[in-house]
C-alpha cells in the first residue's frame, strides 16, 4: 500500500466507524459548521474544564472527508490543553487527513477544524 492508499483507508475507517459520534450531554460549547457548496455539516461539541479539552463529540452529515476529519479531530483534541489546540495549524491537520485533497475537498476537511478553532477561541475569551 502506498502512503496515499493508507490514508484513504484511514479516512474510510473513520467515516464508517466515526469516533466520538453523538450527543455530548454536558458540553460547555457547541457550534454547527456548514459548507453551503455541498451541504456538509458538522456539529461539534466540547466539554472544557479549566485549561483543558476534557471531552469532544460531534454529529454531522456529509461526504467521507468532512465526517472522517471531524472524527479524527475529536480524537486529536481530547485531553489536550486549550493552548495546544490553539497551536494546531491548518496545514498540519490537512496533512494528517490526507494529501492532494484539492481545494474543493480541503474545504470539507477544514469544516471540523474551523468548528474547533471557533470553539476554542470563544472559550479563551
Amino acid at each position, binding site marked *: 500500500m502506498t502512503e496515499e492508499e493508507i490514508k484513504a483507508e484511514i479516512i474510510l475507517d473513520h467515516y464508517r466507524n466515526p469516533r466520538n459520534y453523538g450527543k455530548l450531554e454536558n458540553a460547555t460549547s457547541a457550534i454547527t459548521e456548514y459548507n453551503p457548496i455541498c*451541504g456538509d*455539516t458538522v456539529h461539534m461539541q466540547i466539554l472544557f474544564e479549566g485549561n483543558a479539552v476534557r471531552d469532544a463529540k460531534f454529529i454531522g452529515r456529509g461526504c467521507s472527508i468532512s465526517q472522517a476529519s471531524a472524527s479524527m479531530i475529536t480524537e486529536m483534541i481530547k485531553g489536550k490543553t486549550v493552548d495546544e489546540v490553539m497551536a494546531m495549524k491548518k496545514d498540519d491537520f490537512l496533512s494528517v487527513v490526507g494529501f492532494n485533497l484539492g481545494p474543493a475537498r480541503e474545504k470539507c476537511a477544514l469544516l471540523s477544524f474551523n468548528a474547533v478553532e471557533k470553539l476554542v477561541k470563544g472559550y479563551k475569551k
Partner: protein
Amino acid sequence: MINPERIKKDFPIFSNNPDLCYLDSAATTQKPRQVVDAIENYYYSCNSNVHRGIYKISEDATNRFESSRENISKFIGSRDPRQVVFTRNTTESLNLLAYTLGKSLHAGDEILLSTMEHHSNMIPWQFLREKGVIVKYADITPEGTLDLHDLTGKMTKKTKIVSLTHVSNVLGCINPVNEIAKIAHDNSSLFVVDGAQSVPHMPIDVERMNCDFLAFSGHKMLGPAGIGGLYGRFDLLDNLPPFMGGGEMILNVSLDGATWNETPLKFEAGTPNIEGAIGLSAAVDYLRKLGMDNVRNHEKELIGYTMKRASEVEDLIFYGPRNPEMHGGVFTFNIGDVPAFDLERDLSERSVSISSNGIHPHDTATIMDRDDIAIRSGHHCAMPLMTRLGVSATSRASFYVYNSKEDVDRFFAAINDVKVAFAK
C-alpha cells in the same frame, strides 16, 4: 443524426484529454474549433470598438457584432434582432428584467416562480420583496415535474409576472411553456422563461412559445463565457427603463440628465463583449448545422438509455420524469439516501451512524474523477429544490452533442466503482 465521434473531432479538448468523459455540459459546454476560430479571426482582422468608430475596421467590427445579434435572434425564432439584448449570461438577463420590470411594481404585487428554479431565477425577484412585492412558488409533483395545478392555484389578479425555467437543471423536466404562456396571459401576467437549459438543447421558437422574455447563456451552448442574451417582445422591451448607465446606452447627455439610446442598445451600457457575441454566433451556426431537432433527439436517446440502465441499479435514486419525452439531457441522482442534516432530530437519534445512509455526492464525484469522468455534485444552485427533495446534495451527469452511449456505459461502470469503494 448526431455522430458524437465525428463531433468530438471538432473539440480539441478531447484530443488534449483523450480519456475525458465530460458529463457536465449543464454547467458549461466545451467549445468547438469553429467558435474559437471566429473569435481569433475577429481579433486578428478587425478588432476595434463598435458603434462609434468612423474607420473601416470599426465598421467591420460593428457589422459582425450586429449580424451576430441577427443570427442569434433568428436562432430562437425572433423576427426582429432588436428583440435580443446582449448580456453576460442568464443571470444578468434575469437581473436586468427584475430590475427594470420591478420599477413599476408596487407593494402587494405578486411574482410567481417555482421551487425548482435556479438561484438566478429566484434571488433577483426576491430583491423586490424590499418594496413589498410578494414572491410565490409553484410546487413540484412527486414525479419531479412542475405542478401546473399548484401553479394556477397560486395565480391571482395580483400576479404581475410568472417566471419559470423551461428545463430544470436538476430534475431535467421540460416544462410545458406554451401552455403556461397561455395561462399567464389569460391572467394578464407577463411570462418570463429561463432558457439556460433549453436554448442549447432543443428547437426554440419564441414567437410560437409566446413568452414575453427568454434568458439564455452562451457558454452553455458551445459559445464563450461572458456572453448571453435576453429576448424580449419589442414593445415590452421598448417601454422598459434602462438597466445600467454609462456609455453606449445613451443618446444625449447633459449635466442634468440624458436620453436613452434605442432598444436594445439602451440596455447595453459600456463596451459590449464583441468577441463573445461573434463567438456565440459561430456556436449558433454550428448548432444549426447539426439541426436542433437532431440535438434534442440525440439527448432524448441518451437520457432514455440512462434512465433504463439506472432503473436496473440497486440503490440508485434518480430524479425527474421517467418519460424521456419530458426529460432533457440531465441525469440527477444519489446512491442511497442522502438526507439533509437536521440538528434536533440527528442529536436525538444517536444510534444513526453517519455512513449508514447513502454515498455522499462529493465522494461519488471524486471516485468518478479517478475514472476521468467529470460530473457535478452539490446543490446545483437550487438549494430550495434540494430542501424540497429532502436531500443535502445530489450528483448530476448531463449530456450534449459530443456525448455517446459509450459515455453512459463508462458512467455506469464508474457507479459500480463508487459502490465498491464505499462498500461496507
